[in-house]
Protein backbone atom coordinates (compact mmCIF):
# COMPACT_ATOMS: atom_id res chain seq x y z
CA UNK A 1 0.00 0.00 0.00
CA UNK A 2 2.64 2.47 1.07
CA UNK A 3 4.64 1.54 -1.90
CA UNK A 4 2.01 2.81 -4.23
CA UNK A 5 1.79 6.28 -2.66
CA UNK A 6 5.50 6.66 -2.85
CA UNK A 7 5.59 6.48 -6.54
CA UNK A 8 5.09 9.78 -8.35
CA UNK A 9 2.59 9.57 -11.16
CA UNK A 10 5.12 11.15 -13.51
CA UNK A 11 7.56 8.33 -13.19
CA UNK A 12 4.87 5.71 -13.13
CA UNK A 13 4.63 3.25 -15.93
CA UNK A 14 1.29 1.97 -14.69
CA UNK A 15 -0.51 5.32 -14.93
CA UNK A 16 -0.16 6.90 -18.34
CA UNK A 17 -0.67 10.50 -17.39
CA UNK A 18 1.76 13.14 -18.47
CA UNK A 19 0.86 16.46 -16.86
CA UNK A 20 3.32 18.51 -18.87
CA UNK A 21 1.56 17.36 -22.05
CA UNK A 22 4.43 17.97 -24.38
CA UNK A 23 2.83 15.81 -26.99
CA UNK A 24 5.22 16.35 -29.87
CA UNK A 25 2.69 16.17 -32.65
CA UNK A 26 0.11 18.66 -31.38
CA UNK A 27 2.81 21.08 -30.27
CA UNK A 28 4.33 21.03 -33.73
CA UNK A 29 0.88 21.52 -35.24
CA UNK A 30 0.19 24.40 -32.91
CA UNK A 31 3.42 26.18 -33.80
CA UNK A 32 2.89 25.61 -37.50
CA UNK A 33 -0.64 26.92 -37.31
CA UNK A 34 0.51 29.98 -35.43
CA UNK A 35 2.97 30.77 -38.22
CA UNK A 36 0.38 29.93 -40.82
CA UNK A 37 -2.15 32.48 -39.57
CA UNK A 38 0.60 35.06 -39.27
CA UNK A 39 1.55 34.33 -42.86
CA UNK A 40 -2.03 34.77 -44.05
CA UNK A 41 -2.35 38.04 -42.13
CA UNK A 42 0.77 39.34 -43.84
CA UNK A 43 -0.60 38.14 -47.20
CA UNK A 44 -3.73 40.21 -46.66
CA UNK A 45 -1.66 43.28 -45.91
CA UNK A 46 0.67 42.54 -48.79
CA UNK A 47 -2.28 42.88 -51.18
CA UNK A 48 -2.36 46.62 -50.45
CA UNK A 49 1.33 47.09 -51.22
CA UNK A 50 1.19 44.73 -54.18
CA UNK A 51 -1.68 46.83 -55.57
CA UNK A 52 0.32 50.05 -55.21
CA UNK A 53 3.37 48.43 -56.83
CA UNK A 54 1.50 46.90 -59.80
CA UNK A 55 -0.27 50.15 -60.60
CA UNK A 56 2.92 52.18 -60.21
CA UNK A 57 4.91 49.84 -62.45
CA UNK A 58 2.30 49.96 -65.21
CA UNK A 59 2.01 53.72 -64.86
CA UNK A 60 5.76 54.17 -65.10
CA UNK A 61 5.99 54.75 -68.89
CA UNK A 62 3.44 57.54 -68.57
CA UNK A 63 5.08 58.99 -65.46
CA UNK A 64 8.37 59.10 -67.34
CA UNK A 65 6.78 60.63 -70.39
CA UNK A 66 4.56 63.27 -68.81
CA UNK A 67 5.98 63.80 -65.32
CA UNK A 68 4.01 66.02 -62.96
CA UNK A 69 2.83 68.14 -65.88
CA UNK A 70 0.26 65.35 -66.36
CA UNK A 71 -1.72 66.83 -63.48
CA UNK A 72 -2.08 70.23 -65.14
CA UNK A 73 -2.47 69.26 -68.79
CA UNK A 74 -5.87 69.29 -70.46
CA UNK A 75 -5.03 67.17 -73.52
CA UNK A 76 -6.48 63.72 -73.85
CA UNK A 77 -5.83 62.53 -77.35
CA UNK A 78 -5.47 58.80 -77.94
CA UNK A 79 -4.47 59.38 -81.58
CA UNK A 80 -1.43 61.52 -80.82
CA UNK A 81 -0.80 59.83 -77.46
CA UNK A 82 -0.77 63.05 -75.47
CA UNK A 83 -2.49 62.73 -72.16
CA UNK A 84 -3.34 65.06 -69.29
CA UNK A 85 -5.33 64.53 -66.13
CA UNK A 86 -6.76 67.96 -65.41
CA UNK A 87 -10.34 67.45 -66.75
CA UNK A 88 -10.68 64.23 -64.76
CA UNK A 89 -9.23 65.64 -61.56
CA UNK A 90 -11.49 68.67 -61.91
CA UNK A 91 -14.60 66.53 -62.53
CA UNK A 92 -13.79 64.23 -59.62
CA UNK A 93 -13.29 67.11 -57.20
CA UNK A 94 -16.32 69.16 -58.28
CA UNK A 95 -18.75 66.23 -58.29
CA UNK A 96 -17.48 65.15 -54.85
CA UNK A 97 -17.86 68.68 -53.47
CA UNK A 98 -21.46 68.89 -54.75
CA UNK A 99 -22.11 65.49 -53.16
CA UNK A 100 -20.71 66.63 -49.81
CA UNK A 101 -22.69 69.89 -49.88
CA UNK A 102 -25.88 67.84 -50.16
CA UNK A 103 -25.01 64.75 -48.13
CA UNK A 104 -23.53 66.48 -45.07
CA UNK A 105 -26.63 68.47 -44.03
CA UNK A 106 -29.04 65.69 -45.01
CA UNK A 107 -26.91 63.05 -43.29
CA UNK A 108 -26.70 65.20 -40.16
CA UNK A 109 -30.48 65.61 -40.16
CA UNK A 110 -30.95 61.84 -40.41
CA UNK A 111 -28.36 61.32 -37.65
CA UNK A 112 -30.18 63.80 -35.40
CA UNK A 113 -33.63 62.34 -36.07
CA UNK A 114 -32.36 58.82 -35.36
CA UNK A 115 -30.30 59.74 -32.28
CA UNK A 116 -32.57 62.32 -30.57
CA UNK A 117 -35.92 61.32 -29.15
CA UNK A 118 -38.15 63.10 -31.69
CA UNK A 119 -39.68 59.75 -32.55
CA UNK A 120 -40.40 56.62 -30.50
CA UNK A 121 -37.72 53.96 -30.66
CA UNK A 122 -39.83 51.62 -32.77
CA UNK A 123 -39.88 54.21 -35.54
CA UNK A 124 -36.34 55.45 -35.05
CA UNK A 125 -34.38 52.23 -35.35
CA UNK A 126 -36.05 50.96 -38.55
CA UNK A 127 -35.54 54.47 -39.97
CA UNK A 128 -31.79 54.25 -39.49
CA UNK A 129 -31.84 50.75 -40.93
CA UNK A 130 -33.73 51.86 -44.03
CA UNK A 131 -31.36 54.75 -44.72
CA UNK A 132 -28.41 52.38 -44.40
CA UNK A 133 -30.08 50.01 -46.84
CA UNK A 134 -29.26 52.49 -49.63
CA UNK A 135 -25.64 51.43 -49.17
CA UNK A 136 -26.64 47.87 -50.07
CA UNK A 137 -28.02 48.85 -53.48
CA UNK A 138 -25.39 48.11 -56.16
CA UNK A 139 -24.19 51.37 -57.68
CA UNK A 140 -24.95 50.22 -61.22
CA UNK A 141 -28.63 50.04 -60.23
CA UNK A 142 -28.50 53.55 -58.80
CA UNK A 143 -26.95 54.59 -62.11
CA UNK A 144 -29.73 52.88 -64.06
CA UNK A 145 -32.27 54.79 -62.00
CA UNK A 146 -30.21 57.93 -62.59
CA UNK A 147 -30.39 57.60 -66.37
CA UNK A 148 -34.09 56.82 -66.67
CA UNK A 149 -35.61 58.64 -63.68
CA UNK A 150 -33.30 61.27 -62.21
CA UNK A 151 -32.04 62.82 -65.46
CA UNK A 152 -35.56 63.45 -66.86
CA UNK A 153 -36.59 64.94 -63.48
CA UNK A 154 -33.54 67.20 -63.31
CA UNK A 155 -33.80 68.37 -66.93
CA UNK A 156 -36.51 71.05 -66.37
CA UNK A 157 -34.73 72.16 -63.19
CA UNK A 158 -31.54 72.58 -65.19
CA UNK A 159 -33.36 74.57 -67.85
CA UNK A 160 -34.89 76.78 -65.17
CA UNK A 161 -31.50 77.37 -63.54
CA UNK A 162 -29.99 78.25 -66.90
CA UNK A 163 -32.79 80.64 -67.85
CA UNK A 164 -33.08 82.44 -64.53
CA UNK A 165 -29.61 82.19 -63.03
CA UNK A 166 -27.65 81.91 -66.27
CA UNK A 167 -25.59 84.98 -65.35
CA UNK A 168 -23.85 82.85 -62.70
CA UNK A 169 -21.01 80.95 -64.43
CA UNK A 170 -22.11 77.76 -62.66
CA UNK A 171 -25.33 77.65 -64.68
CA UNK A 172 -24.10 79.42 -67.81
CA UNK A 173 -24.70 76.64 -70.34
CA UNK A 174 -27.83 74.96 -71.56
CA UNK A 175 -28.40 71.59 -69.91
CA UNK A 176 -27.84 68.58 -72.09
CA UNK A 177 -29.06 65.90 -69.70
CA UNK A 178 -26.02 64.21 -68.21
CA UNK A 179 -23.62 66.53 -66.40
CA UNK A 180 -21.75 67.44 -63.25
CA UNK A 181 -24.85 68.42 -61.28
CA UNK A 182 -26.71 65.10 -61.75
CA UNK A 183 -23.44 63.26 -61.00
CA UNK A 184 -23.06 65.22 -57.76
CA UNK A 185 -26.65 64.45 -56.77
CA UNK A 186 -26.24 60.72 -57.50
CA UNK A 187 -23.00 60.72 -55.48
CA UNK A 188 -24.80 62.42 -52.60
CA UNK A 189 -27.32 59.57 -52.56
CA UNK A 190 -24.50 57.02 -52.56
CA UNK A 191 -22.54 58.56 -49.68
CA UNK A 192 -25.52 59.53 -47.54
CA UNK A 193 -25.62 56.23 -45.58
CA UNK A 194 -21.94 56.59 -44.59
CA UNK A 195 -22.49 60.13 -43.37
CA UNK A 196 -25.72 59.32 -41.52
CA UNK A 197 -24.54 56.13 -39.82
CA UNK A 198 -21.21 57.43 -38.54
CA UNK A 199 -22.65 60.80 -37.47
CA UNK A 200 -25.31 58.99 -35.47
CA UNK A 201 -22.66 56.92 -33.68
CA UNK A 202 -20.70 60.10 -32.95
CA UNK A 203 -23.76 61.93 -31.57
CA UNK A 204 -24.76 58.95 -29.42
CA UNK A 205 -21.23 58.92 -27.97
CA UNK A 206 -21.51 62.49 -26.64
CA UNK A 207 -21.69 62.19 -22.83
CA UNK A 208 -25.22 62.51 -21.39
CA UNK A 209 -23.98 64.95 -18.72
CA UNK A 210 -23.20 67.59 -21.34
CA UNK A 211 -26.72 67.45 -22.71
CA UNK A 212 -28.29 67.48 -19.24
CA UNK A 213 -26.16 70.43 -18.17
CA UNK A 214 -27.20 72.37 -21.24
CA UNK A 215 -30.86 71.58 -20.56
CA UNK A 216 -30.48 72.61 -16.92
CA UNK A 217 -29.18 75.99 -18.04
CA UNK A 218 -32.42 76.50 -19.93
CA UNK A 219 -31.32 75.71 -23.46
CA UNK A 220 -33.90 74.28 -25.84
CA UNK A 221 -33.24 71.06 -27.70
CA UNK A 222 -31.92 72.81 -30.79
CA UNK A 223 -29.79 75.22 -28.79
CA UNK A 224 -28.31 72.17 -27.09
CA UNK A 225 -27.70 70.52 -30.46
CA UNK A 226 -26.00 73.52 -32.00
CA UNK A 227 -23.98 74.71 -29.00
CA UNK A 228 -23.18 71.43 -27.23
CA UNK A 229 -23.78 68.28 -29.26
CA UNK A 230 -22.32 69.33 -32.62
CA UNK A 231 -19.28 71.19 -31.21
CA UNK A 232 -18.35 68.31 -28.89
CA UNK A 233 -18.71 65.78 -31.69
CA UNK A 234 -17.04 67.93 -34.33
CA UNK A 235 -13.94 65.74 -34.81
CA UNK A 236 -16.05 62.64 -35.36
CA UNK A 237 -18.44 64.46 -37.68
CA UNK A 238 -15.49 65.71 -39.73
CA UNK A 239 -14.26 62.11 -39.81
CA UNK A 240 -17.65 60.98 -41.11
CA UNK A 241 -17.58 63.64 -43.82
CA UNK A 242 -14.02 62.68 -44.77
CA UNK A 243 -14.96 59.01 -45.03
CA UNK A 244 -17.92 60.02 -47.20
CA UNK A 245 -15.54 62.08 -49.34
CA UNK A 246 -13.34 59.00 -49.80
CA UNK A 247 -16.39 57.09 -51.01
CA UNK A 248 -17.39 59.87 -53.38
CA UNK A 249 -13.94 60.19 -54.96
CA UNK A 250 -13.83 56.53 -55.91
CA UNK A 251 -17.48 55.89 -56.79
CA UNK A 252 -17.64 54.74 -60.39
CA UNK A 253 -20.72 53.18 -61.93
CA UNK A 254 -23.43 55.56 -60.78
CA UNK A 255 -21.30 58.52 -61.91
CA UNK A 256 -20.21 57.10 -65.24
CA UNK A 257 -23.85 56.65 -66.20
CA UNK A 258 -25.01 60.23 -65.56
CA UNK A 259 -21.98 62.50 -66.02
CA UNK A 260 -21.79 62.45 -69.83
CA UNK A 261 -18.10 61.43 -70.01
CA UNK A 262 -16.74 64.41 -71.84
CA UNK A 263 -13.11 65.33 -71.11
CA UNK A 264 -13.53 69.08 -70.79
CA UNK A 265 -13.03 71.54 -67.98
CA UNK A 266 -16.12 73.75 -67.80
CA UNK A 267 -17.22 75.98 -64.96
CA UNK A 268 -20.85 75.20 -65.68
CA UNK A 269 -22.36 72.44 -63.56
CA UNK A 270 -24.87 71.71 -66.32
CA UNK A 271 -22.14 70.67 -68.76
CA UNK A 272 -21.14 67.04 -69.20
CA UNK A 273 -17.80 66.18 -67.60
CA UNK A 274 -15.70 63.19 -66.63
CA UNK A 275 -14.13 61.85 -63.45
CA UNK A 276 -11.06 59.68 -62.89
CA UNK A 277 -13.14 56.55 -62.16
CA UNK A 278 -15.43 57.23 -65.11
CA UNK A 279 -12.59 57.50 -67.62
CA UNK A 280 -11.01 54.32 -66.22
CA UNK A 281 -14.32 52.49 -66.59
CA UNK A 282 -14.96 53.66 -70.13
CA UNK A 283 -11.47 53.44 -71.65
CA UNK A 284 -9.67 50.52 -70.02
CA UNK A 285 -11.48 47.90 -72.06
CA UNK A 286 -10.29 49.49 -75.31
CA UNK A 287 -6.81 50.62 -74.32
CA UNK A 288 -4.13 48.91 -76.41
CA UNK A 289 -1.15 51.24 -76.55
CA UNK A 290 1.37 51.03 -73.71
CA UNK A 291 1.28 54.78 -73.21
CA UNK A 292 -2.53 54.89 -73.17
CA UNK A 293 -2.62 52.08 -70.58
CA UNK A 294 0.16 53.91 -68.75
CA UNK A 295 -1.82 57.16 -68.66
CA UNK A 296 -4.88 55.34 -67.34
CA UNK A 297 -2.70 53.59 -64.75
CA UNK A 298 -1.27 56.99 -63.82
CA UNK A 299 -4.84 58.22 -63.22
CA UNK A 300 -5.57 55.09 -61.15
CA UNK A 301 -2.39 55.73 -59.15
CA UNK A 302 -3.49 59.31 -58.42
CA UNK A 303 -6.91 58.05 -57.32
CA UNK A 304 -5.32 55.29 -55.22
CA UNK A 305 -2.97 57.69 -53.41
CA UNK A 306 -5.63 60.37 -52.84
CA UNK A 307 -8.29 57.97 -51.51
CA UNK A 308 -5.64 56.28 -49.36
CA UNK A 309 -4.70 59.62 -47.79
CA UNK A 310 -8.35 60.64 -47.31
CA UNK A 311 -9.28 57.29 -45.78
CA UNK A 312 -6.29 57.20 -43.42
CA UNK A 313 -7.17 60.71 -42.22
CA UNK A 314 -10.81 59.69 -41.74
CA UNK A 315 -9.96 56.46 -39.89
CA UNK A 316 -7.65 58.35 -37.53
CA UNK A 317 -10.31 61.02 -36.87
CA UNK A 318 -13.11 58.54 -36.21
CA UNK A 319 -10.85 56.32 -34.12
CA UNK A 320 -9.88 59.26 -31.90
CA UNK A 321 -13.57 59.61 -30.99
CA UNK A 322 -14.26 55.98 -30.28
CA UNK A 323 -11.31 55.43 -27.95
Amino acid at each position, binding site marked *: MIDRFDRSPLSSTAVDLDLTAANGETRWLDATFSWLVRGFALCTVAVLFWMGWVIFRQAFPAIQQFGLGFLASQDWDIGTLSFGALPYIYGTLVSSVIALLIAVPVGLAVALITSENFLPVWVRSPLGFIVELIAAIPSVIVGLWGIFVLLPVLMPIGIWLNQNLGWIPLFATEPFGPGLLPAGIILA*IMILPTMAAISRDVLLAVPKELRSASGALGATRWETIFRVMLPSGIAGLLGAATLALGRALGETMAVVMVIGNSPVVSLSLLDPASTIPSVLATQFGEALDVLHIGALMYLALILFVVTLAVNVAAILMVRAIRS
Partner: protein
Amino acid sequence: MNPARPTPPIASLADAPEELSVPLPWRRRIFSHSMTTIAFLLTGLALLPLFAILIEIIRRGLPQLSWETLTALPAPVGMTDMADGFGNAIVGTLLMVGVATLISVPIGVLTAVFLSEFGQGSTIANAVRFLVTVLSGVPSIVVGVFAYGVIVLTTKEYSALAGSFALGVIMLPIVVLATEGALLLVPQSQRLASAALGANRLQTTFRIVIATALPAIMTGILLSIARAAGETAPLIFTALFTENFPRGLFSPAPSLSVLIYNYANSPFVEQNQMAWTAALVLLGLVLLLSVVSRVITRKRSDA
Protein backbone atom coordinates in the same frame (compact mmCIF):
# COMPACT_ATOMS: atom_id res chain seq x y z
CA MET B 1 -35.95 62.31 -19.83
CA ASN B 2 -36.42 65.32 -22.02
CA PRO B 3 -34.84 68.33 -20.39
CA ALA B 4 -34.50 70.38 -23.51
CA ARG B 5 -38.20 70.68 -24.30
CA PRO B 6 -39.61 74.09 -23.32
CA THR B 7 -42.24 73.95 -20.55
CA PRO B 8 -45.56 75.30 -21.73
CA PRO B 9 -46.92 78.18 -19.68
CA ILE B 10 -49.37 76.96 -17.02
CA ALA B 11 -52.63 78.83 -16.71
CA SER B 12 -52.83 78.78 -12.91
CA LEU B 13 -49.43 80.43 -12.64
CA ALA B 14 -50.45 83.27 -14.91
CA ASP B 15 -50.60 85.79 -12.08
CA ALA B 16 -47.59 84.46 -10.18
CA PRO B 17 -44.28 86.38 -10.39
CA GLU B 18 -43.58 86.79 -14.04
CA GLU B 19 -40.17 85.09 -14.32
CA LEU B 20 -41.59 81.74 -13.19
CA SER B 21 -43.95 81.42 -16.13
CA VAL B 22 -42.18 83.29 -18.91
CA PRO B 23 -42.74 81.37 -22.12
CA LEU B 24 -39.85 81.07 -24.55
CA PRO B 25 -39.31 84.26 -26.52
CA TRP B 26 -40.73 84.08 -30.04
CA ARG B 27 -37.37 83.94 -31.70
CA ARG B 28 -36.22 80.88 -29.77
CA ARG B 29 -39.54 79.14 -30.26
CA ILE B 30 -39.58 79.78 -33.99
CA PHE B 31 -35.97 78.60 -34.21
CA SER B 32 -36.86 75.35 -32.45
CA HIS B 33 -39.91 74.60 -34.54
CA SER B 34 -38.32 75.51 -37.85
CA MET B 35 -35.21 73.42 -37.14
CA THR B 36 -37.39 70.42 -36.23
CA THR B 37 -39.33 70.88 -39.46
CA ILE B 38 -36.14 71.17 -41.51
CA ALA B 39 -34.67 68.03 -39.91
CA PHE B 40 -37.80 66.02 -40.68
CA LEU B 41 -37.96 67.35 -44.24
CA LEU B 42 -34.32 66.46 -44.89
CA THR B 43 -34.83 62.97 -43.44
CA GLY B 44 -37.81 62.54 -45.74
CA LEU B 45 -35.62 63.68 -48.61
CA ALA B 46 -33.04 61.05 -47.61
CA LEU B 47 -35.64 58.30 -47.77
CA LEU B 48 -36.99 59.44 -51.12
CA PRO B 49 -34.30 57.92 -53.42
CA LEU B 50 -34.49 54.48 -51.80
CA PHE B 51 -38.24 54.21 -52.27
CA ALA B 52 -38.09 55.79 -55.72
CA ILE B 53 -35.49 53.23 -56.80
CA LEU B 54 -37.38 50.27 -55.32
CA ILE B 55 -40.71 51.31 -56.81
CA GLU B 56 -39.23 52.01 -60.23
CA ILE B 57 -37.37 48.69 -60.36
CA ILE B 58 -40.50 46.74 -59.47
CA ARG B 59 -42.72 48.76 -61.83
CA ARG B 60 -40.41 48.50 -64.82
CA GLY B 61 -38.69 45.20 -64.10
CA LEU B 62 -41.49 42.92 -62.99
CA PRO B 63 -43.50 42.72 -66.27
CA GLN B 64 -40.67 40.95 -68.15
CA LEU B 65 -39.75 38.63 -65.29
CA SER B 66 -40.40 34.99 -66.11
CA TRP B 67 -38.69 31.63 -65.97
CA GLU B 68 -37.41 32.26 -69.50
CA THR B 69 -35.74 35.53 -68.53
CA LEU B 70 -33.84 33.75 -65.80
CA THR B 71 -32.63 30.88 -67.95
CA ALA B 72 -32.51 31.89 -71.62
CA LEU B 73 -29.65 33.55 -73.44
CA PRO B 74 -30.01 37.15 -74.62
CA ALA B 75 -31.89 37.23 -77.92
CA PRO B 76 -30.42 39.26 -80.78
CA VAL B 77 -32.04 42.71 -80.92
CA GLY B 78 -35.24 42.71 -82.97
CA MET B 79 -35.94 38.98 -82.68
CA THR B 80 -39.27 39.12 -80.89
CA ASP B 81 -40.17 35.47 -81.43
CA MET B 82 -37.15 34.18 -79.52
CA ALA B 83 -36.83 33.61 -75.81
CA ASP B 84 -34.93 36.57 -74.36
CA GLY B 85 -33.19 36.40 -71.03
CA PHE B 86 -29.96 36.70 -69.11
CA GLY B 87 -29.34 33.22 -67.74
CA ASN B 88 -25.72 33.47 -68.84
CA ALA B 89 -25.22 36.60 -66.71
CA ILE B 90 -26.73 34.92 -63.65
CA VAL B 91 -24.43 31.92 -64.10
CA GLY B 92 -21.45 34.23 -64.69
CA THR B 93 -22.15 36.27 -61.56
CA LEU B 94 -22.55 33.11 -59.46
CA LEU B 95 -19.36 31.63 -60.93
CA MET B 96 -17.21 34.69 -60.31
CA VAL B 97 -18.63 35.42 -56.86
CA GLY B 98 -18.18 31.74 -55.98
CA VAL B 99 -14.52 31.70 -56.99
CA ALA B 100 -13.99 35.05 -55.23
CA THR B 101 -15.50 33.54 -52.07
CA LEU B 102 -13.17 30.55 -52.32
CA ILE B 103 -10.20 32.92 -52.58
CA SER B 104 -11.14 35.42 -49.92
CA VAL B 105 -12.85 33.42 -47.17
CA PRO B 106 -9.92 31.14 -46.14
CA ILE B 107 -7.40 33.99 -46.24
CA GLY B 108 -9.80 36.39 -44.56
CA VAL B 109 -10.86 34.05 -41.77
CA LEU B 110 -7.27 33.03 -40.98
CA THR B 111 -6.19 36.68 -40.95
CA ALA B 112 -9.01 37.40 -38.50
CA VAL B 113 -7.92 34.41 -36.38
CA PHE B 114 -4.47 35.95 -36.24
CA LEU B 115 -5.89 39.35 -35.25
CA SER B 116 -8.11 38.09 -32.45
CA GLU B 117 -6.45 34.84 -31.24
CA PHE B 118 -2.73 34.73 -31.94
CA GLY B 119 -1.53 38.28 -32.28
CA GLN B 120 -4.12 40.09 -30.16
CA GLY B 121 -2.84 43.41 -28.85
CA SER B 122 0.53 43.14 -30.58
CA THR B 123 1.87 45.99 -32.71
CA ILE B 124 1.86 43.79 -35.78
CA ALA B 125 -1.82 42.90 -35.28
CA ASN B 126 -2.75 46.56 -34.86
CA ALA B 127 -0.83 47.43 -38.01
CA VAL B 128 -2.51 44.59 -39.91
CA ARG B 129 -5.95 45.71 -38.72
CA PHE B 130 -5.26 49.31 -39.73
CA LEU B 131 -4.05 48.34 -43.19
CA VAL B 132 -7.01 46.02 -43.71
CA THR B 133 -9.33 48.91 -42.86
CA VAL B 134 -7.44 51.04 -45.37
CA LEU B 135 -7.76 48.24 -47.94
CA SER B 136 -11.53 48.23 -47.42
CA GLY B 137 -11.61 51.89 -48.45
CA VAL B 138 -9.76 51.42 -51.74
CA PRO B 139 -12.22 52.26 -54.57
CA SER B 140 -13.43 49.15 -56.39
CA ILE B 141 -12.37 50.60 -59.75
CA VAL B 142 -8.77 50.72 -58.48
CA VAL B 143 -9.06 47.07 -57.47
CA GLY B 144 -10.22 46.40 -61.02
CA VAL B 145 -7.17 48.21 -62.40
CA PHE B 146 -5.03 46.07 -60.09
CA ALA B 147 -6.62 42.84 -61.37
CA TYR B 148 -6.15 44.11 -64.92
CA GLY B 149 -2.45 44.71 -64.24
CA VAL B 150 -1.91 41.39 -62.47
CA ILE B 151 -3.94 39.00 -64.59
CA VAL B 152 -5.12 40.56 -67.85
CA LEU B 153 -1.75 42.09 -68.77
CA THR B 154 0.09 38.89 -67.79
CA THR B 155 -2.14 36.35 -69.49
CA LYS B 156 -2.91 38.71 -72.39
CA GLU B 157 -6.61 37.94 -72.24
CA TYR B 158 -9.72 39.05 -70.41
CA SER B 159 -10.98 36.27 -68.18
CA ALA B 160 -13.46 35.29 -65.50
CA LEU B 161 -10.42 34.59 -63.33
CA ALA B 162 -9.40 38.26 -63.44
CA GLY B 163 -12.94 39.24 -62.44
CA SER B 164 -12.96 36.71 -59.60
CA PHE B 165 -9.57 37.95 -58.42
CA ALA B 166 -10.85 41.54 -58.31
CA LEU B 167 -14.01 40.53 -56.44
CA GLY B 168 -11.92 38.44 -54.04
CA VAL B 169 -9.73 41.44 -53.21
CA ILE B 170 -12.86 43.52 -52.59
CA MET B 171 -14.35 40.83 -50.32
CA LEU B 172 -11.15 40.17 -48.36
CA PRO B 173 -11.16 43.17 -45.97
CA ILE B 174 -14.92 42.81 -45.38
CA VAL B 175 -14.47 39.15 -44.40
CA VAL B 176 -11.50 39.95 -42.15
CA LEU B 177 -13.17 42.78 -40.25
CA ALA B 178 -16.50 40.95 -39.87
CA THR B 179 -14.84 37.72 -38.74
CA GLU B 180 -12.64 39.52 -36.25
CA GLY B 181 -15.71 41.22 -34.81
CA ALA B 182 -17.41 37.83 -34.53
CA LEU B 183 -14.42 36.19 -32.84
CA LEU B 184 -14.11 39.03 -30.33
CA LEU B 185 -17.71 38.39 -29.23
CA VAL B 186 -16.75 34.93 -27.94
CA PRO B 187 -16.32 35.29 -24.14
CA GLN B 188 -12.75 35.01 -22.89
CA SER B 189 -13.92 32.53 -20.25
CA GLN B 190 -14.67 29.95 -22.94
CA ARG B 191 -11.11 30.13 -24.21
CA LEU B 192 -9.79 29.78 -20.66
CA ALA B 193 -12.09 26.81 -19.99
CA SER B 194 -10.85 25.14 -23.14
CA ALA B 195 -7.22 25.73 -22.15
CA ALA B 196 -7.94 24.41 -18.66
CA LEU B 197 -9.19 21.18 -20.19
CA GLY B 198 -5.83 20.79 -21.86
CA ALA B 199 -6.57 22.05 -25.36
CA ASN B 200 -3.85 23.93 -27.15
CA ARG B 201 -4.52 27.09 -29.11
CA LEU B 202 -5.15 25.29 -32.37
CA GLN B 203 -7.82 23.13 -30.76
CA THR B 204 -9.29 26.06 -28.83
CA THR B 205 -9.47 28.14 -31.97
CA PHE B 206 -11.22 25.55 -34.09
CA ARG B 207 -13.36 23.63 -31.62
CA ILE B 208 -14.41 26.50 -29.35
CA VAL B 209 -13.89 29.96 -30.81
CA ILE B 210 -14.73 29.45 -34.48
CA ALA B 211 -17.49 26.96 -33.66
CA THR B 212 -19.15 29.51 -31.34
CA ALA B 213 -18.71 32.43 -33.69
CA LEU B 214 -19.77 30.54 -36.82
CA PRO B 215 -23.21 32.19 -37.31
CA ALA B 216 -21.69 35.66 -36.98
CA ILE B 217 -18.88 34.73 -39.37
CA MET B 218 -21.46 33.50 -41.85
CA THR B 219 -23.20 36.87 -41.56
CA GLY B 220 -20.01 38.65 -42.52
CA ILE B 221 -19.39 36.31 -45.43
CA LEU B 222 -22.96 36.78 -46.69
CA LEU B 223 -22.54 40.57 -46.53
CA SER B 224 -19.30 40.39 -48.47
CA ILE B 225 -20.95 38.15 -51.09
CA ALA B 226 -23.79 40.66 -51.40
CA ARG B 227 -21.27 43.42 -51.94
CA ALA B 228 -19.30 41.45 -54.53
CA ALA B 229 -22.41 40.40 -56.46
CA GLY B 230 -23.31 44.03 -57.05
CA GLU B 231 -19.86 45.21 -58.09
CA THR B 232 -19.54 46.36 -61.68
CA ALA B 233 -16.53 48.61 -61.94
CA PRO B 234 -13.90 45.89 -61.41
CA LEU B 235 -15.56 43.57 -63.94
CA ILE B 236 -16.03 45.85 -66.98
CA PHE B 237 -12.43 45.57 -68.12
CA THR B 238 -11.39 42.29 -66.49
CA ALA B 239 -14.16 39.78 -67.17
CA LEU B 240 -15.76 41.83 -69.95
CA PHE B 241 -19.02 40.29 -71.15
CA THR B 242 -20.16 37.55 -73.50
CA GLU B 243 -23.48 36.67 -75.06
CA ASN B 244 -22.99 33.00 -74.14
CA PHE B 245 -22.74 31.00 -70.98
CA PRO B 246 -19.30 31.32 -69.36
CA ARG B 247 -16.87 28.77 -70.77
CA GLY B 248 -14.63 28.47 -67.76
CA LEU B 249 -12.26 30.61 -65.77
CA PHE B 250 -9.86 31.48 -68.54
CA SER B 251 -12.22 33.18 -70.96
CA PRO B 252 -14.41 36.28 -70.61
CA ALA B 253 -17.60 35.86 -68.62
CA PRO B 254 -20.88 37.78 -68.45
CA SER B 255 -22.28 39.14 -65.20
CA LEU B 256 -25.57 40.67 -64.13
CA SER B 257 -24.06 43.99 -63.17
CA VAL B 258 -22.17 44.48 -66.44
CA LEU B 259 -25.30 43.42 -68.32
CA ILE B 260 -27.26 46.16 -66.55
CA TYR B 261 -24.58 48.70 -67.47
CA ASN B 262 -24.48 47.63 -71.13
CA TYR B 263 -28.26 47.48 -71.49
CA ALA B 264 -28.79 50.81 -69.72
CA ASN B 265 -26.58 52.51 -72.32
CA SER B 266 -28.19 50.60 -75.18
CA PRO B 267 -30.23 52.51 -77.77
CA PHE B 268 -32.80 49.68 -77.90
CA VAL B 269 -35.87 49.96 -75.70
CA GLU B 270 -36.17 46.17 -75.23
CA GLN B 271 -32.65 46.08 -73.79
CA ASN B 272 -33.42 49.08 -71.55
CA GLN B 273 -36.41 47.18 -70.20
CA MET B 274 -34.33 44.05 -69.72
CA ALA B 275 -31.85 46.14 -67.71
CA TRP B 276 -34.61 46.86 -65.20
CA THR B 277 -35.49 43.18 -64.92
CA ALA B 278 -31.84 42.28 -64.38
CA ALA B 279 -31.69 45.04 -61.75
CA LEU B 280 -34.73 43.50 -60.05
CA VAL B 281 -33.04 40.07 -59.95
CA LEU B 282 -29.70 41.47 -58.78
CA LEU B 283 -31.26 43.71 -56.15
CA GLY B 284 -33.45 40.87 -54.93
CA LEU B 285 -30.36 38.73 -54.47
CA VAL B 286 -28.35 41.46 -52.75
CA LEU B 287 -31.13 42.72 -50.46
CA LEU B 288 -32.05 39.17 -49.50
CA LEU B 289 -28.44 38.44 -48.51
CA SER B 290 -28.04 41.64 -46.52
CA VAL B 291 -31.42 41.50 -44.80
CA VAL B 292 -30.92 37.83 -43.86
CA SER B 293 -27.47 38.54 -42.48
CA ARG B 294 -28.71 41.55 -40.51
CA VAL B 295 -31.54 39.53 -39.02
CA ILE B 296 -29.02 36.91 -37.86
CA THR B 297 -26.85 39.54 -36.15
CA ARG B 298 -29.78 41.37 -34.63
CA LYS B 299 -31.12 38.19 -33.03
CA ARG B 300 -27.71 37.38 -31.66
CA SER B 301 -27.15 40.81 -30.17
CA ASP B 302 -30.61 40.73 -28.54
CA ALA B 303 -29.94 37.39 -26.93
